[in-house]
């Protein structure tokens, strides 16, 4: 899977899986979405998820 491939559009995950990605990123990386908000489309790609984790770490 390329970093920019939409995991939803390519059928690898469905849009409901975003909820599980949110829960996983919260628990594993301690990211608090309450202040930054959830951008579901960002979580549709590997690059988007990595960018999110990266920006939260900074």
């Amino acid at each position, binding site marked *: 899977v390329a970093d920019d491939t939409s995991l939803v559009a390519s059928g690898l995950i469905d849009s*409901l899986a975003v909820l599980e990605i*949110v*829960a996983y990123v*919260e628990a594993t990386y301690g990211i608090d*979405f309450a202040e*930054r*908000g*959830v*951008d*579901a489309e960002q979580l549709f790609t590997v690059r988007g998820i990595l960018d999110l984790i990266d920006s939260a770490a900074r």
Partner: protein
Amino acid sequence: MSAGLRRAVRRVAQLHEDEAVVGLWRRALRPVLAWLTPGRRRTLLALAALYEAIRRPIHEVTSNPEVFEPGGLVEGVALVLILLGVFYGVYLAARNFARLPGVVRRRPQITLHSLFWIALAVFWALPPGAGALRVVLGGFVVVLPALLWRLGYLVMSGQRGRMAGTTPRDHLVYLYPFWGGSKTPYGKGLDYLARHEARTDEALARSQLAGIKLFALALVWKAALALMDGLVYGDPASPVTRALGGASLGLVRFGRLLGGEAHPGLLVAWLSVYAELVRQVLKLAVRGHEVVGILRLAGFNVFRNTYKPLLAGSIVEFWNRYYFYFKELLAEFFFFPTFVRWFKPRPRLRMFAATMMAAGAGNMYYHLLQREGTLLQGDLAGVWWSLHSRALYCVLLAAGIYVSMVREQGRRGHAAAPPGPGSWARRLLGVWTFYGVIHIWGLDTPHTFAQRTRFFLSLLGW
């Protein structure tokens, strides 16, 4: 269907992906496509938005006598400036989001919406003879609901740290969108539009062809609606009815059924429920295709608003495909904010609360804001009267979506054979029945809760 015919249909349906058609379009419009860079397109769209930002408030202030005493040009211009000032203030707040007070950063949307409710409370407090102030405030309350969700997307851009490199021009484009629509922001905000914006002349050509395809589809669904009027309902005003010599399936429109004007047999009543659902979907598809078609012509190749919901195999899938931009509004402004704040250790409860907040409470709140005229008059009983049936619709919708989401999650990870025709038909019937029935309480008609419930019970033979 033969393979050749299938290929031909596919080719027509995918004309925006057909290299020959794209090439032809690019050759025919080369100078225009080359001149319309993303920057120039945004400037043109911002000018159209600015025109609307001036026209609409002046129109509301000078021609709303049933809500408040109409004002003149001076009040209209004052309102235009105030609204543009609010827009610029929100833009600055979004740009400096990290420096806002903590309470605003934690609840930016509630802060934004409190503008509306404070303005409404002040309007109520002013005596009818308060003159220009009351006129301007009244206009503010009438116009603001159409801007609130769009300003919400602007705030969201700030919250997500996406304001860098954007200007007021970029955000004005979707605040007063020239592509029209409703209070629901078709195309959402700049984050979403920019993600789907054509950056090359080839991408612009593809986007425009995709838009033209949507206009063609809208025409097809309009024709289908006209056919339904004659063939299904036998509407005497329909030319199709006249052409058929009055022959029709004899189904009955919801308005007559809910009002008790018609008492068909059980089969006709149920078929009328399904026909009404089809009609609602087609109507929404026509409007959505026209709006999204314009967006695509302008170079924003965004998702359709309605995408084959009648073929959805589950309640949640139908909801995702039926009214995409409304679903997105509820998800972004209600579902996710609840999901990331409440019941984190309990996944099922977390999802239930978020779904209830979005499809239930958020849905009601959205429609409450649609009643800005009645609210302005302080007619709270009138507001409740117009919304009380919808309350049950929203609760049933939210419960249905939640159950469907849980079922979908349960299915995930289990390799299942594709459903056979029988199973597929059963699923479709289940989805149609669910949405057909809840529409009894959701349709925006003047019928009472009791009338709607009586009709529902009659469907069960009571």
